[in-house]
């Protein structure tokens, strides 16, 4: 008989245990923020490398979107997101960028876009700068995961002589100078020409680029007859 009681009790306990309702899994931690940017810029990493070189000289700034993502539940009220710059890990200073460090995550939303404005200052033609942005604790949010609690942005405007200038491009553009290279970029929108590669421009296309550059040079010189375009060595730019 004892035997039967133990068996029945065990079976009953099993039924009781299985009859308990399962509760949903809920985020139990405090609300946090992680940051990132466009995958086309980060390529899945925590870094962005940007160059102004290919842009016409009239382009003086650009904007990189920093996305602050919510880790946790949405709420029906606005909350404060804070970012800060790690100065020790940065070389960019205030003329180089504008970054609002406090932003609002709107009610019922889980991401906010923070614009990082990077400026094309003159010193960038000599040397690039970098900016280390990280999540800061705010009254509403703690810092998120280590892998995504920061974003590194580097930018420059440093021109470099293309490797194939002497072998392939001299036929069209003549001898190299930084000023001439900048002129070509302003005229064509292209910094490097893979002429000679199977998927590169052909001779006729290169001739077209040359004519665009020459047209721009002549225009500049006609508008500045007393100050014809010279390169960094003081030599007149010719093609």
């Amino acid at each position, binding site marked *: 008989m004892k035997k039967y009681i133990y068996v029945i009790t065990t079976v009953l306990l099993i039924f009781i245990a299985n009859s308990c309702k399962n509760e949903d899994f809920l985020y139990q931690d405090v609300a946090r923020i992680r940051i990132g940017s466009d995958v086309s810029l980060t390529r899945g990493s925590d870094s962005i490398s940007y160059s102004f070189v290919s842009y016409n000289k009239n382009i003086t700034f650009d904007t990189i979107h920093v996305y602050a993502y919510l880790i946790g539940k949405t709420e029906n009220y606005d909350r404060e997101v804070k970012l800060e710059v790690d100065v020790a890990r940065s070389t960019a200073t205030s003329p180089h960028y504008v970054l609002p460090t406090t932003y609002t995550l709107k009610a019922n939303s889980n991401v906010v876009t923070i614009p990082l404005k990077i400026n094309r200052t003159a010193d960038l033609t000599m040397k690039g700068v970098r900016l280390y942005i990280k999540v800061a604790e705010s009254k509403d949010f703690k810092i998120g995961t280590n892998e995504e609690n920061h974003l590194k942005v580097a930018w420059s405007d440093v021109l470099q002589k293309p490797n194939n200038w002497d072998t392939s491009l001299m036929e069209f553009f003549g001898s190299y100078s930084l000023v001439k290279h900048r002129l070509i970029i302003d005229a064509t929108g292209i910094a490097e020409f893979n002429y000679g590669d199977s998927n590169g421009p052909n001779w006729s*296309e290169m001739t077209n680029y040359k004519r*665009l550059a020459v047209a721009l040079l002549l225009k500049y010189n006609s508008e500045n007859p007393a100050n014809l375009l010279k390169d960094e060595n003081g030599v007149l730019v010719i093609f």
Partner: protein
Amino acid sequence: MKIKIFQILFFVGCILSALNSCVDNNINSTFNDVTSFDVDTAGWYNKMRINTYYKGDTIKANVTLKNAAGNENMKYYWLIYSTSYSQVTEGNKLVWPPADTLSKKLSLVAPLMKKPGFYYVTLVAENLDTKRMSITTVPITIKNSIESGLFALEEINGNTDVDIFRSERMAMGNPIHLKQYYNTAFGHAMPGKPQYLAVSNDLPYLYLFSESEGGRLSSADFSLMADFSQLFYNAPSNIQVEGYLNANNTEFLVNNGKLYSIYTNKANNLKFSSPIAGDYSMAPWMPSQTSDYAYIDGNWVLLQNSHMVVYDQKYQRYLQIPASNPYAAQFSSFKTTTADAPFDVNNIGKKMVYGEYGFNSSFYSIFENSTGQKSLYLPNFTTIDVGNFSANSGVIPMDQCQNIANAKYYGVCGAGPVLVYATDNELYAFNYQGNGTSNKLYSLPSNLKFTTIHLWRPGGHPADSKIIWAGVWDEAAQKGYVYEFEISPSAGILDSSWADMIGLQVDNPAIFDGFGKIKMFRFKL
């Protein structure tokens, strides 16, 4: 019996004489029995002459010999050579190039792989025994378009189309008149009034533009190869095509006073590069030849100073793309003109109203000064630059030419010192080596007007510089005509010698109807 010596000698002498006479008789008999032969031209000669061929076509001739019997040991060869057959440079010498051999059989079956143009095909038949030869020559035309002939750019009901026309006087195949060929190909005319028709006999396409659209068309079937925007790496904002020339391995296109180019001997996408840079506004005319051979120090030397020469209307001067830098991105001036030169190519100071390469290697340039006076300049740009391009002559006044102030259309001879011009109603010829005046060739009735003229310069054709076609328009009846004139390029008068020579009974001018309002003519092989 003694046989006397003299009897022996006599006997031997008789035998020898008999032998000699027999030999003599055999030779005489052989000579008298040779049968002359000739090539029978029936059935193939005229057919070959009036046919036109595409490059790659097979040319055939089923030929027989007259008096074939007795002419068995024969050799045959068919040759083909250009009608403008001339010497070419080989090393330091000028030599006659060998003609190409099409076949070595009596009957001909051979592919024609020559580029489009006018050629002679010659059959040489030789009896190897007698060394007698028979030579038969027939002219043929190799074309590269749907039809070769005169392409007339015309306005039909405010839109653009092309008629293709060939007359008997052209002696290049059966006469034809294909009307509104663009409509035939596309089902409708090209929208917009006609603007420009550009052709080259070396290329398998042409360019057709109205005021609102246009592009590159295959000359085989008029199919569209590229529209206006696709013709350029950086297309201009407006269609304003004014001139075209294919020369020196370069297609030159003038749009809104700017010069665009495709270098056909370089890798390209059949797109025109951005225009030659600089502050200029180009006249639409360019010389089709900027080089020539000269015999210097015992050698034939090719002289070429310029890859191309243009006239800048804005600063009223000639400019060049130098031959030493044919891919230059901007124009260059010429050397400083010498003090004894009758005119300064770097500073003409007048507006060009017409230009065309012509007689004596001159770039005929008709200028108009600020008071409307016209004059003819004849610079020769086929020589090297020594500061004086006016070796042919100085400035030739045209103010004594009849009605020159109203001249609208021009044509230049290559075979003589004559240019022609037309006003609204009258056609004139001016011989610049004459007395300074022009002579009237023709007057239209008052209800008709000239809309264009074209002096035929096909190069290598025996009628070169002898035929003028004029577009004529009857505004009241809304009907268009082609008037075909034949002139003497040396005398500058109406002259039907060519038509007479080829056995034609045609008027001068001959009048053809069934056209729209013709804006320009272009000849296409």
